[in-house]
């Protein structure tokens, strides 16, 4: 018995190795002319042939290694796909054991700016890390917002970026508006609007985005699945085209640049008298604003998370989940499916709008280019990879995807002349790697990184409902 399995596994290994070697060899052969020889313009203008065999070797090894890995894991036959989760640590995050990890998680999030400053040796050098944190948290928040629509209510929305855009433009237009500024100058002081616009416009941006969520929701209520996806996709593109072409309002493709910066609840982050540093007795440093922005997006993301957790326990949240499962059954239980879908759309859109306003105040420039379909796709990928509906999963996948893509920029060793040459920019390949990551995760964990969900209500004890044990059957 033991011998039989040992023989089987050594046979498997031999077969996998053979296959991997063959694939590597084929790749190398194919790539020698395609990649291995590179014609460039020499100093005299004539074409010069360069050889890049190192690169060919890397690709061949990559292909061989990937196939070997796949053979030993994913393609191993069904027997290897047991019920045991492959990343027990990740799965545990969603379970009761995660409760102990959560305070640590929050502490890290709160202390992150401090860690960044200490780790990089000063406020100035920490800028990269703080900005990266802000960038990732923005996507965590967007992922959580879209998670309400896609993960909880099961409505495939490919145009989520539209609400992000509505939020950003609402804020940009209102905060940069001269008439509004003049109006408040007459009543509440000359600087009122410049200092307070973000705090006034943030809720407005969310509300307006929610309104657009309802407007989009109405026509698509009857649609489901693929049809809904296509219409939302179109909606996202329409919003972008309107932003480009309605030049009078949006300044078209040139974008809006006159957005006032964020203030510390009315105190500007300026160097002079009355500025943030001056009032708090600190030495002026532009990084104060970035750190404050970090905490603002952290608070906004936390708001999204808490609201989602709350909503999930309320009747409307449970109706969303039921709607995802079976619309006809929902109706037969007296649930107003129209209203349920609309609330999912509009609440999801609202958080997108908040994130958009934050984006605008951070970059202080908005243009239609920031709101392409690619953004929707990335946000959706975060939700899907995270395991639809799982908040912690969405956060993890946002950190991995966005952080990972950013880290690509740091792979400077690839610029070695023996490899890709100094002109090589690894970040250009981020979409390729992104795609690889998607395929890999979906092959290993078809239900996303964190696939188990907790029952929303517990009778006496918490019971985890494992995603790995579920066979979706109806009979």
């Amino acid at each position: 018995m033991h011998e039989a399995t040992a023989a089987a596994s050594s046979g498997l290994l031999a077969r996998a190795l053979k296959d991997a070697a063959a694939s590597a060899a084929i790749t190398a052969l194919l790539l020698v002319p395609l990649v291995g020889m590179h014609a460039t313009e020499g100093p005299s203008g004539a074409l010069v042939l360069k050889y890049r065999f190192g690169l060919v070797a890397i690709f061949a090894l990559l292909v061989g290694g990937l196939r070997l890995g796949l053979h030993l894991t994913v393609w191993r036959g069904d027997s290897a796909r047991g019920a045991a989760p492959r990343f027990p640590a990740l799965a545990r995050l969603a379970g009761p054991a995660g409760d102990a990890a959560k305070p640590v998680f929050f502490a890290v999030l709160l202390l992150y700016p401090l860690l960044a400053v200490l780790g990089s040796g000063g406020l100035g050098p920490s800028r990269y890390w703080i900005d990266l944190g802000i960038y990732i948290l923005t996507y965590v928040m967007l992922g959580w917002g879209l998670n309400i629509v896609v993960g909880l209510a099961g409505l495939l929305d490919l145009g989520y970026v539209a609400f992000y855009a509505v939020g950003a433009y609402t804020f940009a237009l209102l905060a940069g508006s001269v008439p509004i500024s003049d109006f408040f100058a007459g009543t509440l002081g000359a600087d009122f609007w410049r200092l307070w616009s973000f705090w006034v416009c943030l809720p407005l941006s969310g509300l307006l985005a929610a309104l657009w969520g309802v407007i989009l929701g109405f026509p698509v209520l009857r649609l489901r699945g693929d049809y809904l996806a296509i219409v939302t996709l179109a909606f996202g593109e329409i919003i972008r085209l309107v932003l480009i072409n309605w030049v009078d309002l949006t300044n078209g493709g040139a974008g809006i640049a006159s957005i006032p910066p964020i203030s510390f609840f009315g105190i500007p982050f300026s160097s002079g008298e009355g500025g943030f540093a001056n009032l708090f007795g600190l030495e002026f440093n532009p990084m104060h604003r970035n750190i404050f922005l970090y905490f603002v997006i952290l608070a906004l993301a936390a708001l999204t998370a808490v609201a989602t957790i709350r909503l999930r326990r309320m009747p409307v949240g449970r109706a969303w989940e039921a709607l995802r499962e079976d619309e006809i059954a929902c109706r037969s239980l007296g649930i107003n499916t129209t209203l349920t879908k609309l609330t999912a759309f509009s609440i999801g859109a609202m958080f997108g709008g908040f994130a958009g306003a934050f984006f605008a105040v951070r970059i202080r420039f908005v243009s239609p280019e920031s709101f392409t379909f690619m953004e929707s796709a990335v946000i959706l990928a975060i939700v899907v990879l995270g395991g639809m509906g799982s908040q912690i999963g969405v956060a993890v996948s946002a950190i991995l995807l966005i952080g990972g893509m950013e880290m690509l920029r740091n792979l400077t060793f690839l610029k070695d002349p023996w490899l890709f040459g100094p002109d090589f920019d690894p970040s250009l390949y981020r979409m390729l790697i992104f795609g690889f990551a998607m395929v890999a995760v979906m092959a290993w964990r078809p239900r996303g990184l964190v696939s188990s969900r907790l029952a929303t209500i517990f009778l006496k004890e918490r019971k985890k409902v494992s995603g790995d044990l579920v066979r979706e059957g109806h009979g």
Partner: protein
Amino acid sequence: MSKPMLSVAGVKTQYGKIIALHGVDLDVNEGEIVTLIGANGAGKSTLMMTICGTPRASEGRILFEGRDITHMPTHEIMRLKIAQSPEGRRIFPRMTVYENLQMGAAMDDYAHFEGDLERMFDMFPRLKERLHQRGGTLSGGEQQMLAIARALMSRPRLLLLDEPSLGLAPLVVRQIFDVIRELNAIEGLTVFLVEQNAYHALKLAHRGYVLVNGSITMAGTGRELLESPEVKAAYLEGGA
């Protein structure tokens, strides 16, 4: 005689050009079990769904407790103390048994939730054992029990059941029919039962209707229909 609880009068239902119901008349009185039998495709499920408002009747009138519900939105009809266990059970597969039952009580504001839950466990002890299992992983019989229990959680006065015996072992069918009988006898629940299993359904029901190609062809008490030669020939052949 008092007015019927549910009255279907001259109801015609179409799917596009296909006419599924050609003017159906049918009454369900308070406290009765009424069954509707008929062959595959006769329009039984269509009739039940028309009562619930999807699809809509293109002609005729449907009254529930004297109120015209023909044009009411489905979710409002289902809040009038009518509950339905639709064809194919349609429980929520990824939700636990407990959550499924909760969804059933959603329109009752959970006021009687704990007590009703206990009642369901008395009726279907299996559900208590499976409380934290996902609905989709239950056996067919357990899913049917869950579908009925979920419908009952809204404390209906009229229960609509579409083929609760579908695909179940005879013993489980008996168990489910016993529960229906008890609910009716003890709690006075009115039941409208659509069934293929004509023998059991007619034995259980006070009255029955036979639906053929979208029209009612026969009506009578359960016993009358059981003994009628036409019913015997068409629906009870070799049956029991």
